[in-house]
């Protein structure tokens, strides 16, 4: 029996449903190319919105990916999560029955849960009254359905936990899954996140003055904000020994993580707390700042985020800030899935040997100070050994994961 934290934990499967493609290979190719995959929104009526671009998952046909759950009974976020989880298991070369027979569970992060379902219910309310809400839609509305969908789809009998810590939720999920596997509570965990595009968030971000018109340019002097986005992502975690025994491909090792809270303001991030979170993550992972070769930034594309994130990094790394890039420049802000997509690309960066780029950067904002390398353009060949994945959120929920090349 293992004591807490005594087992090494590796990532052996990756799954993605995103505007940059379905499946880890398509997703990674798109990120490496550095060409934005955002587009005009078609999933809700954008009439009257001045800004109508987002990272929408086009042409997602859930029946192509899901075998057990009936998509008609599940919301879009659950469909994304379950599809991404199934893709991750296939990618890991793990037989479905072997996974189902093991002590396996899922932990998924989200910001707005089944927001698309809630908006359908609101449409019924608007058209008539609350009395006219469709029972099946009501049943699909709770956010906890996201992890439940993963367990149902894969026949898992372990925990099904949905974490709702907004835009850092996937990193919370990855950290928790890591602890469960390391501590011997589970032998496989699917960790990730999912969110769906919705009008209310699009409106809210626009009113906060945080929504870009068409292009997301983190770290650029001409940045203008975020693009909302959607998708689902899942990573399969298992003990190193088990992965070796079954001859699995190991993308990366989860070295550690940290979570903390600003406790200052609901929507303005705090660099001091973020710096503390970075330091705690390093301590938890047993690494020093000098060992970090790359930071996958929260990088939303707002001036506030850039300034805060770089200031926090400077507090920890001094003048030697590792290359720091934002894949939100390519896929937009996938909310609760965002740090999961970040973790996925970190795994690929470690396994294939590259640094993910920031798209759309023409001139790095001099106000960020010297030494900020956002890896502009397309992916850069490199051999990172240890990387850091950032996730920050409304409510001051910071979560940082540390991943390493498997040695």
């Amino acid at each position, binding site marked *: *029996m293992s004591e807490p*934290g005594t087992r090494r934990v590796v990532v052996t499967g990756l799954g993605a449903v995103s505007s940059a493609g379905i499946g880890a290979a398509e997703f990674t190719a798109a990120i490496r190319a550095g060409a934005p995959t955002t587009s005009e929104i078609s999933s809700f009526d954008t009439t*009257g*919105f*001045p800004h109508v671009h987002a990272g929408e998952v086009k042409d997602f046909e859930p029946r192509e990916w899901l075998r057990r759950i009936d998509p008609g009974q599940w919301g879009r976020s659950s469909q994304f999560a379950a599809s991404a989880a199934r893709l991750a298991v296939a990618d890991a070369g793990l037989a479905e029955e072997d996974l189902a027979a093991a002590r396996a569970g899922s932990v998924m992060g*989200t910001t*707005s*849960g089944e927001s698309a379902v*809630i*908006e359908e219910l609101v449409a019924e*309310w*608007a058209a008539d*009254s*609350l*009395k006219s809400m*469709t*029972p099946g839609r009501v049943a699909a*509305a*709770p956010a*906890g359905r996201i992890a*439940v969908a993963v*367990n149902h789809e894969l*026949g*898992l*009998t372990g*925990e*099904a*936990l*949905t*974490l*709702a*810590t*907004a835009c850092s939720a996937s990193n*919370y999920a990855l950290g*928790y899954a890591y*602890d469960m596997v390391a*501590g*011997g*509570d589970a032998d496989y965990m699917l960790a990730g996140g999912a969110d769906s595009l*919705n*009008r*209310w968030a*699009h*409106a809210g*971000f626009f*009113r*906060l003055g945080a929504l870009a018109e068409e292009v997301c340019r983190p770290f650029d002097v001409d940045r203008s904000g975020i693009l909302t986005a959607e998708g689902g992502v899942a990573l399969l975690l298992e003990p190193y020994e088990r992965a070796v025994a079954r001859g699995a491909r190991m993308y990366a090792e989860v070295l550690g993580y*940290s979570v*903390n*809270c600003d*406790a200052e*303001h*609901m*929507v303005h991030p705090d660099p001091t*707390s973020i710096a*503390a979170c970075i330091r705690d993550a390093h301590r938890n992972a047993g690494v020093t700042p000098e060992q970090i070769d790359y930071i996958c930034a929260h990088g939303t594309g707002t001036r506030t985020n850039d300034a805060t994130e770089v200031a926090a990094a400077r507090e920890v790394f001094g003048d030697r800030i590792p290359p720091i890039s934002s894949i939100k420049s390519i896929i937009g802000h996938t909310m609760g899935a965002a740090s999961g997509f970040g973790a996925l690309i970190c795994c690929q960066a470690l396994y294939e040997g590259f640094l993910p780029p920031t798209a759309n950067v023409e001139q790095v904002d001099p106000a960020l100070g010297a030494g900020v390398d956002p890896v502009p353009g397309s992916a850069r060949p490199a051999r990172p050994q240890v990387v850091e994945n950032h996730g920050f959120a*409304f*409510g*001051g*929920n910071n979560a940082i994961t540390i991943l390493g090349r498997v040695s």
Partner: protein
Amino acid sequence: MSSATAMVAAEEVASGHAPGRTAALAVTAVGVATPAGLDPVELARAVLAGRQGSADTEGLGDEALPPRGARVVPELQNAFAEHIGRKGNRHLDRTTRLGLLACQFALEGHTGPVGPRTGVVLGTSTGSIRSSSEYSMETLRQDRPYLVNPSLFPNTVMNCAAGQIAIRHGLKGVNATLAGGHLAGVQALRYARNALRQGHADRLLVGGVEEYCAQSAWGWHRSGALGIDAPVGEGAAFLMIEPAAAVHAAGRRGLARILACETAFAGGRGLGDALAAVIGAALVRSGKDPAEVQAVSLGSTGQRGLELVEQRAVRAALGGRLPQRVIRVKDTVGECFSSGGALQIAALLGAWQDQGAAAAGETAVVTAVSQEGQVGCVVLDTNELGTGELGAGGLGAGGLGD
């Protein structure tokens, strides 16, 4: 069946297929905001007497409510003004207000330090469904869809209440919101156990919040999930959770120990079998024999199809009987979805507190089951914490064992 279940659980432990016992957690304070009052003893007395909580739905908005019983925290605005204050709180929704109030009471009853290494683990189902639904409705009703109120935007995000609780009390430790629905109570404790074990905080306010609103009341009514007489309710409950060893080392005392918080997913098995198995596994993990369990706090009261499944599973796991003390909170507080689990525990703690020394040494299971296949069980007892006698803590003077 129960011995078979226990045997399976024991085999799982022996074969390394279930984790062993971990350090106990201490509950050192509890705070509630419920339709039956703002004190866990009041809640417990109402629950044990079968007394209904307040059904006054005045001031909850203009939408017509369904023809179904309601349980609502009475005079919430006044209680909030009195205990929290009005200043700077204009935009807070009902979910956040309930959460702030219950946490305030838990902190008032907490005798140890608080400080920045304190955190929050909050169970929800959708956050404030009223806030997100109304925000979405504004995008349809305004002249332009973006003419929503930016200061209300954070209310639409599920981690709003936990963030506000952290801000009010300067709690910089782990701050987690989990969307657990009926499993939220067990899941929140499980998340907390891990976070404390990993050192992400020294102590955690762990609980759940659910508000009564037209949206959720109609949702329950339309869903068909509740029995015809089952009221929809609301409430919040938070426990201060600390490692029992740390509480003892500081010479402080707790209200109860939490020995296990286990969850599983039915998958292909029947829900009842899965629940019985998880109760068995939780008892093994707690080092308790099924015969030692004297109380159960049930989760699915009022839910069609689940109520009997849960009771059968409890009987199966406990040797064919229900314990002498059976707590059903929902007649009093209504269907509280994600805060139900925390309220089940709060009522149990209130009952123990009310009984004083007579409850010393009692062991209880708190069960949870969801229509969708999730099952869970928490095991608590009132045994001494370390060598210190279990005694007064957050519930006021005259604690258990005194």
